[in-house]
């Protein structure tokens, strides 16, 4: 296998050049439309999937489809790695080797900051990072955010029917009559542009931080929030410690908010930027895709790493420093 790869002038670069030229030609001859931007995820199904008495109707939204896709991709990766490891090779090749390298980096990072609690904290870091990176990079797939069902809308664009009753595209122009304007509701929309997903992930992360804090320190973990230990011995500074502890409670809630809006904001802003660039300067969109690829991976690592850092902080006791004095 020791074969040095020679750089050859292959055919691939000409294909890419051809695609770029085709993009410019299409850009000139086919007028672009500005897509309809909506913060809340759209409903793909017309009727509700099922209804619960108190909570109301449940619809099949396009981010839910993306979540199922993400789960399938992750389970597929897991099964492929399991199959490779079951064969019993000492040195894993291909996908299993790549996953081993990735998880080793994550584990070493966790161990350097959490010490003996690394085995407990590592699953959260790895799961959150892998989930978020797969759901963010789904933005790069062709068809995501662009193929979907047509829906009538008052501020829509007219239709260009390709195959009657089966396929149509939305083209530029304004609809004269009501019921002639359509917008595309995509089947798959990037999962991280749904506030429900990021908020759920943030709540899981912060709640498990508390659980790990209790596991590490027992009931002494509550001293971080209700610090009555120094109230008697040092009256003035003890009161300040108590107030600082109460502020820690607020900071736990603000962690949820900042987790939620960091991931949502980065990815939603990226996809809006891609939509608007696609409607104004399509050839710049491919460059922006590269940037979004980078942002998607960075945000996944940031989400996981912050979870890890908060968890390893929760395992360190608050009262431990006072024994040194």
């Amino acid at each position, binding site marked *: 296998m020791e074969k040095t790869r020679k750089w050859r002038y292959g055919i691939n670069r000409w294909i890419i050049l051809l695609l770029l030229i085709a993009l410019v030609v299409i850009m000139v001859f086919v007028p672009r439309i500005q897509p309809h*931007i*909506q*913060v*809340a995820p759209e409903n793909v199904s017309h009727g509700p999937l099922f209804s619960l008495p108190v909570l109301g109707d449940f619809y099949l939204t396009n981010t839910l489809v993306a979540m199922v896709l993400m789960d399938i991709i992750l389970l597929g990766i897991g099964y492929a790695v399991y199959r490779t490891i079951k064969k019993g090779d000492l040195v894993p090749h291909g996908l299993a080797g790549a996953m081993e390298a990735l998880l080793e980096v994550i584990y070493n990072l966790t161990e350097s900051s959490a010490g003996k609690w690394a085995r407990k904290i590592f699953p959260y870091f790895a799961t959150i990072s892998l989930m978020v990176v797969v759901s963010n990079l789904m933005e790069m797939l062709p068809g995501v955010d662009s193929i979907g069902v047509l829906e009538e809308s008052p501020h829509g664009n007219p239709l260009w029917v390709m195959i009657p009753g089966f396929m149509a595209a939305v083209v530029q122009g304004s609809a004269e009559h009501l019921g002639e304007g359509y917008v595309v509701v995509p089947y798959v929309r990037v999962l991280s542009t749904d506030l429900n997903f990021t908020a759920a992930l943030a709540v899981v992360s912060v709640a498990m931080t508390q659980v790990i804090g209790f596991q590490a320190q027992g009931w002494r973990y509550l001293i971080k929030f209700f610090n009555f230990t120094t109230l008697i011995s040092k009256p003035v500074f003890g009161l300040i410690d108590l107030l600082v502890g109460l502020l820690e409670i607020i900071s736990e809630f603000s962690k949820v908010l*900042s987790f939620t*809006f*960091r991931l*949502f*904001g*980065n990815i*939603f*802003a990226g996809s*809006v930027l891609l939509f608007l660039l696609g409607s104004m300067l399509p050839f710049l969109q491919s460059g922006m895709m590269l940037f979004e690829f980078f942002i998607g991976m*960075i*945000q996944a*690592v*940031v989400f996981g*790493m912050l979870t890890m850092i908060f968890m390893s902080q929760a395992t360190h006791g608050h009262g431990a420093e006072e024994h040194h004095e």
Partner: protein
Amino acid sequence: MTGDIVEAAKFIGAGLSMIGALGGGVGIGLSVQGALEGMARNPDAYGTLLTNMILGIAFSEAIAIYCLVIAFLMLFVL
């Protein structure tokens, strides 16, 4: 008439909320400055400094992104 005023106020508010991106810019500049000075003094620490710099940039960028979220909410939701 009132609809037009509300529409105009939306755009003005979205523009005003983006002033907050100033802080993110200053923060990114400061963190890159610190990392570059460290790299110039100690080129061996290039790798770790780069990783931590990108992490810090992601955190300060998040502040600017919050402003962007507010601007988007004003433009597309309200």
